């Protein structure tokens, strides 16, 4: 009995990591239809945010340091939501309804984000800030022209057109100029290409003893965090005004627009929300694995797998898919079937098959095989969208 309970706990804890990383994607991919290959990198940004918050709190001393992870969660949410918002406004909104281009563009973004954390230093930050404040630059420039009484409509027109190229050149120039100063402080990469070390706070290390095994606190924490995120999302999508708008835009964009719903704002908000959830997932994975520029790559495939199996646009499907995949992965990979079959005295060939698949690598093969077979029967996932769902 205890064995069964522990098995369920382990399966659920694998599933909860899958679910948490897939939640944001379920919104972005499920509700908006955007194939966001940069989702993993948004998780990675969340993990790096945790690293920064950890270091800041370490300098505050002991009672604070233990609580850093609770502060990291909202901060990571805000940071990645802001990045997601910028991503939607800057790239994705031009590509709605063009899945292939979205796929390529977001993949490019994921590479940019990976390289960004590898090489980010003050010089690059200055450059980015300069670029973001390009409108201020233009305003100052035009004011100066006005003072010199050169302010003609044609000049104004050129000023508009030239803003982005000039700001790009200026920003790049600033980055190179600052880098050329060889100032140790300004040009040292913050994180470098190496993995960084995030240490779980003391109260999350160790676990509750349960017979011979120990249920890790970190896993329990992740399960609880997943539940909170699920509840929060359920409330937001189903009970809040903005949630209502998101659902109506998902169902019929034109009609919603006619009725006065600001669809562009809704898109940006939805994407930011999905990205923010990726950030929270990023905090959670620092408890389990490595934090480095490539971290996101380890989770993105599993996240898509969960959303596809769950059925696009359905929260319940996502939950069931994540738990199902987690439990199957655990039961096959840990060799539970082997023990079970040995005690049940099943035919030898069944036992051989179970033994063959009882390694972590082969368990992955097995679960993918099951998923492929499953999608043959239910191509649209566990809960396919019904009725007149709008095209996006």
């Amino acid at each position, binding site marked *: 009995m205890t064995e069964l309970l522990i098995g369920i706990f382990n399966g659920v804890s694998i599933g909860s990591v899958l679910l948490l990383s897939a939640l944001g994607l379920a919104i972005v991919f499920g509700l908006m239809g955007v194939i966001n290959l940069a989702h993993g990198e948004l998780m990675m940004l969340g993990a790096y945010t945790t690293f920064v918050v950890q270091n800041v709190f370490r300098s505050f001393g002991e009672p604070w340091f233990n609580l850093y992870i609770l502060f990291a969660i909202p901060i990571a949410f805000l940071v990645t939501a802001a990045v997601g918002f910028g991503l939607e406004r800057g790239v994705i909104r031009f590509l709605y309804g063009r899945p292939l281009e979205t796929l390529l563009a977001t993949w490019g973004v994921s590479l940019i984000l990976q390289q960004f954390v590898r090489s980010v230093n003050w010089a690059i930050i200055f450059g980015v800030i300069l670029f973001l404040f390009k409108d201020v630059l233009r305003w100052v420039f035009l004011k100066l022209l006005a003072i010199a009484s050169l302010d003609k409509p044609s000049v104004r027109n050129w000023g508009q*057109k030239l803003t982005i190229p000039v700001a790009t*050149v200026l920003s790049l120039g600033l980055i190179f100029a600052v*880098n050329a100063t060889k100032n140790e402080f300004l040009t040292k990469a913050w994180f470098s290409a190496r*993995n960084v070390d995030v240490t779980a706070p003391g109260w999350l290390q160790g*676990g509750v003893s349960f017979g011979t095994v120990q249920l*890790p606190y970190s896993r329990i924490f992740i399960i609880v965090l997943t539940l909170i995120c699920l509840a929060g999302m359920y409330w937001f999508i189903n009970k809040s005004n903005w949630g209502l708008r998101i659902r109506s835009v998902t169902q019929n964009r034109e009609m919603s627009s006619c009725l006065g719903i600001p669809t562009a704002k809704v898109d940006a908000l939805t994407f930011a929300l999905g990205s923010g959830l990726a950030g929270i997932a990023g905090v959670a994975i620092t408890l389990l694995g490595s934090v480095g520029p490539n971290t996101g*790559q380890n989770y993105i495939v599993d996240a898509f797998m969960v959303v596809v199996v769950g059925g696009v646009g359905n929260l319940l499907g996502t939950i069931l898919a994540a738990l199902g995949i987690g439990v199957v992965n*655990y039961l096959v990979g840990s060799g539970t079937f082997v023990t079970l079959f040995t005690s049940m005295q099943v035919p030898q060939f069944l036992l051989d098959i179970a033994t063959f698949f009882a390694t*972590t690598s082969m368990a992955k093969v097995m679960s993918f095989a099951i998923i492929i077979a499953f999608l043959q029967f239910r191509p649209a996932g566990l809960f396919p969208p019904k009725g007149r769902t709008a095209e996006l």
Partner: protein
Amino acid sequence: MSNLGRRKFILYSSAALGSSILLKACGTPPETTEETTTEEGSTPAAEGGDTIKVGILHSLSGTMAISETTVVEAEKLAIKEINAMGGVNGKQIEAIVEDGASDWDVFKEKAEKLIDQDGVAVVFGCWTSASRKAVKDVFESKDHILFYPLQYEGQECSKNIFYTGAAPNQQIEPAVDWLLENKGTDFFLVGSDYVFPRTANTIIKAQLDAKGGTTVGEDYLPLGNTEVTPIIAKIQAALPDGGVIFNSLNGDSNVAFFKQIADAGLTPDKYPVMSVSIAEEEVRQIGPEYLKGHYASWNYFQTVETPENEKWVADFKAEYGEDRVTNDPMEAAYMMVYLWKQAVEQAGDAYDLEGVRNAAIGQEFAAPEGLVTMNANHHLSKTVRIGEVREDGLFDIVWSTDGPIAPQAWNQYVEATKGYACDWSDPAKGEKYEI
């Protein structure tokens, strides 16, 4: 949006052109420090000139770059030191650095380029076994020289490659012996799912069978996988009262593995983990607090107490920064440049490849790890050490061999290679002969 007018086009394209010119003007010059003086058609062996060209071939980009750039730094430091001391036979060494880009085909291509176009006298390079296997044919068909600095799975002995890292009998086998003697006889083997861990575990299983140990289980994680729960469950089922875990995981999975076994209550006093891919640099990235009390087996640790090591660590920090650490692959990479230098000085001419290869056998060098000797099988005699991770991320050396151990290229526990050896000093014996 798609309506890109002529004016706009001119605008954007001129902006793009402008910024690209700016980029070129401000960009740092490429790493390659060569000035090609090679004349068309001249053979490498016929070259004179004031410098000796050597090739450095590691991944400077891609997934292996993190590790391999540290090795490049160690090689460059050695070259700088040798040049400062007056070079080799009075000639300065000129390093040509190529990027293998973590892509085995690129390694092969760049190796050909270094030999054919640049006319280098030797190549220092590679990290993964996959990249070494990719360039092995190139060096053999062109009858050239490669120095390879990593511990590896053995079962190879090329006439054209000198292996300055540990063979399995200089790292894995002593570690297993030590564990059997001090930590218990029940072993669980964990590794990444590719050639090195699988070969290493084959050797370990054969050795445990021969010495009375038991392999209670083995499992492999796909590279990059971070979910360790099923493996932990297996370990707990197979070793309920504790036992030895032998870990040949590589890369990110190590972080996940150590974080999760710590949380699951597998502590080093009951479940000591012996790792063969975790050195000082990796400890820093995983976090010493998760690794404290676990073990690693290497030939070199930063904490080795030799005068040569003290000097080297100080020199390395002075060159690359006070917060840097040194480790086994870096040390092997550093000293192999000196071994090559000594061989060239004995042979007289760096481009007399046959002569350099023959002269290399028998070279001794007081390396940071202690005295090393190049054997006839192109591997080094090395001291073996076992270290325990301390709080500061360095290792306490808990055990070491009395002196250098002779290398075995062909493993003596594996049935297929039992009773074979390699000897390049005797043309009749060569790559593989029966003892």
